[in-house]
């Protein structure tokens, strides 16, 4: 009894202390059920402004091109008037306009940035954020990519030491401790090849950097405009040597290779063009399409060569296509069709062994290959039969030596030719008997 009294006392004190919140939690299920029975208040219950007034506000802001605020109010209007079909449509349309405008201004910003017009770029990125406040890339540009770099990234090469790298960047091997310090390395230990190091850019009074990257980038850009791709490429390679992760230099490098590929393609030097396109990162806009176009042109060329029976050249062109694109089905088909065609030609020329050699290089899964191989054997048997009959003719004319030669030819073409085998033995026995009689 005493124990029970204590429990009640404890419960009593607990309720007093926790009050409303505690009891609500204690009786959570019950209250929830009560709320479920009483649905949320309708707009009339709450006596707030009607949805139309929020809709008006939204339209007013939309007119002023304050699209995010317009969207806020539109969503409120939509909640207050859940039966409206027009409001959700309007919300969707606003969202789509916002996305479109954000994308448009962001692209403009990136273009300005590429031209190093940072003030204009900043404005465009700010507008992007006005339309789309959570646009991560615009924020990244604003925060990190519009100011001069505080450090460069260097990719360690085989056998590089920190002293070598220090000499390269600071013209002074004794600043190796600085590189070690900022990359958590031990000054004496050589860095691992392939590691990307952060190299702080020092003020010119401490040392002058061997390369002025912003100026070099402008040079490369101008050379590209003048279509001097090779020179532009040399500069970008040099920049990337010092700043391995320099995005602008990578972009220019891709652009240079792409332009060179287009130029070579225009000169119908397709394999060389593909080589250039292959050096461009696959994400570069248009490069995949450019490679495909060149491959298509090469396939047309190979088909023409096939018609002209220039088989070895077909193999060379299609083989190169497969070098660039291992899974190119059209090139693989072409190679196997060429083998079949070559095999058929050799059948006509009665060069069955060569035909089989050629067809053995083809993919046996191809129907045309299967059929041509079967044709070779059929032709061989047919030819063997011709030689067999010739042998019979010679035998009847008592020209035993000639008959044996023909049957041997038949046997060579068809080793299973039993009659030829048997007749050769008979003829040779006859010849032996004739020798004895003589």
């Amino acid at each position, binding site marked *: 009894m005493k124990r029970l009294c204590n429990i009640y006392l404890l419960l009593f004190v607990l309720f*007093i202390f926790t009050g409303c919140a505690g009891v609500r939690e204690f009786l959570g299920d019950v*209250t929830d059920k009560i709320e479920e029975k009483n649905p949320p208040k309708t707009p009339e219950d709450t006596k707030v402004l009607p949805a139309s007034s929020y809709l008006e506000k939204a339209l007013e802001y939309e007119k002023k*091109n304050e699209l995010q605020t317009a969207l806020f109010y539109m969503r409120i209007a939509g*909640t207050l008037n859940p039966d409206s079909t027009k409001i959700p449509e309007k919300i969707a349309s606003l969202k789509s306009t916002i996305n479109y405008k954000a994308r448009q201004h962001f692209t403009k910003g990136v273009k300005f940035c590429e031209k190093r017009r940072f003030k204009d770029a900043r404005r465009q990125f700010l507008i992007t954020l006005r339309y789309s406040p959570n646009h991560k890339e615009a924020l990244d540009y604003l925060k990190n990519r519009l100011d001069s770099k505080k450090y460069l990234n260097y990719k360690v090469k085989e056998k590089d030491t920190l002293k070598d790298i220090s000499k390269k960047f600071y013209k002074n091997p004794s600043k190796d401790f600085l590189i070690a310090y*900022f990359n958590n390395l031990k000054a004496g230990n050589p860095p691992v090849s392939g590691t990307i190091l952060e190299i*702080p850019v020092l003020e010119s009074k401490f040392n002058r950097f061997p390369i002025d990257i912003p100026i070099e980038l402008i040079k490369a850009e101008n050379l590209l405009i003048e279509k001097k791709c090779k020179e532009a490429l040399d500069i970008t390679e040099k920049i990337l040597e010092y700043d391995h992760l320099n995005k602008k230099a990578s972009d220019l490098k891709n652009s240079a290779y792409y332009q060179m590929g287009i130029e070579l393609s225009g000169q119908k030097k397709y394999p060389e063009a593909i080589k250039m396109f292959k050096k461009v990162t696959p994400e570069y806009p248009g490069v995949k399409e450019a490679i495909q176009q060149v491959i298509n042109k090469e396939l047309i060329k190979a088909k023409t060569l096939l018609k002209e029976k220039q088989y070895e050249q077909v193999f060379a062109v299609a083989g190169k296509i497969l070098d660039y694109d291992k899974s190119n089905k059209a090139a693989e088909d072409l190679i196997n069709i060429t083998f079949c065609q070559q095999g058929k030609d050799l059948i006509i020329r009665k060069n069955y062994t060569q035909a089989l050699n050629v067809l053995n290089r083809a993919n046996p899964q191809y129907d045309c290959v299967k059929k041509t191989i079967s044709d070779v054997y059929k032709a061989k048997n047919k030819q063997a039969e011709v030689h067999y009959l010739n042998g019979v003719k010679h035998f009847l004319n008592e020209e035993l030596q000639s008959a044996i030669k023909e049957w041997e030819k038949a046997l060579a073409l068809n080793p299973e030719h039993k009659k030829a085998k048997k007749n050769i033995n008979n003829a040779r026995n006859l010849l032996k008997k004739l020798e004895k009689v003589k």
Partner: protein
Amino acid sequence: MQPLANKRKTIFHIILLLFLLVLAACATSTRSHHKTSEIRINDDFIIVKATAKDTLSSLAAEYLNDPSKGWLIAEFNHIKSLTSGQELCIPLFPFNKGGLKSGGFQTVPVLAYYSFSKNKPSKISITQDDFKAQMKYLKENGYHVITLNQLLGFFDYQEQIPDKSVAITFDDGWISVYDIAFPILKEYGFPATIFIYTDFIGGGKAMSWKQIKELSDAGFDIQCQTKTHRNLTELREKESFKEYFKSLEMEISYPKKVIKKKLNKECECLAYPYGITNNLVIAMLKKYGYRAAFTVDNKSNPFFIDKYKINRSAIYGKYDIEKFKKRLSVFQNMELK
């Protein structure tokens, strides 16, 4: 007899339990505080109708869990005060983190003060009356003095701050900050940050660690301004680059440890001595986990400022209120359409 006694006991327990439940139910009804006229919109907004008892601050406390955020409701609804029956939209998220508007973007002035005097101004010393007048001007003209954390939240594009925000900082650790500025700031309820260079503390004209602790406990942010206040960008005479580098490391790492030891608080920001810096210093600050650093460049700061080159406007002794006002630029015009 025994079963009857047991029955009575059971009935008694049931009655007692029911009594407790009734009591609890009463408590529930008395503590229900939500308004009858409120609508929640997708967890982003609440629409409420203000009653005569409501203030911006009470609504902010109720719906944003922070009474100091009344300005957020005011700014969203374009109002300065509340009237009974007024319908308000309360945003439950920072609706404009960077302070971007169609006509430009928000900037935050960070004021840098040094020392104070009772009535004799000098280049770096401001009189008590002048400082008071400046704080009064901020209060009466709708400026919000924000904390260092709010400022960094704004620069991180995480937190929205009031349209007319300003931050107050003090350099070095002069005793006059404690004697003159501290009581005035307390009177106005303004937060501030003090950047100390640790070798100065405890000296003749400097605050003691005890006084700094008192300021820290009163809510002032104590951050550092190196160990010795050396110029971080220049080599001293006959100093080798390696010695300079070692010295930088000491200037940056030592005060962090001392502040941690003396105040048990993390030092995350630094004010550059003479307001100047270079890439090497910034790289080292990052290595030591500093979140931000301040120069003395007389400009206000947009959210996208380099956090290791935050501008501050130095307020000198002979500034009249007109000159002071010019340091309070809170908006940069730029067409953002």
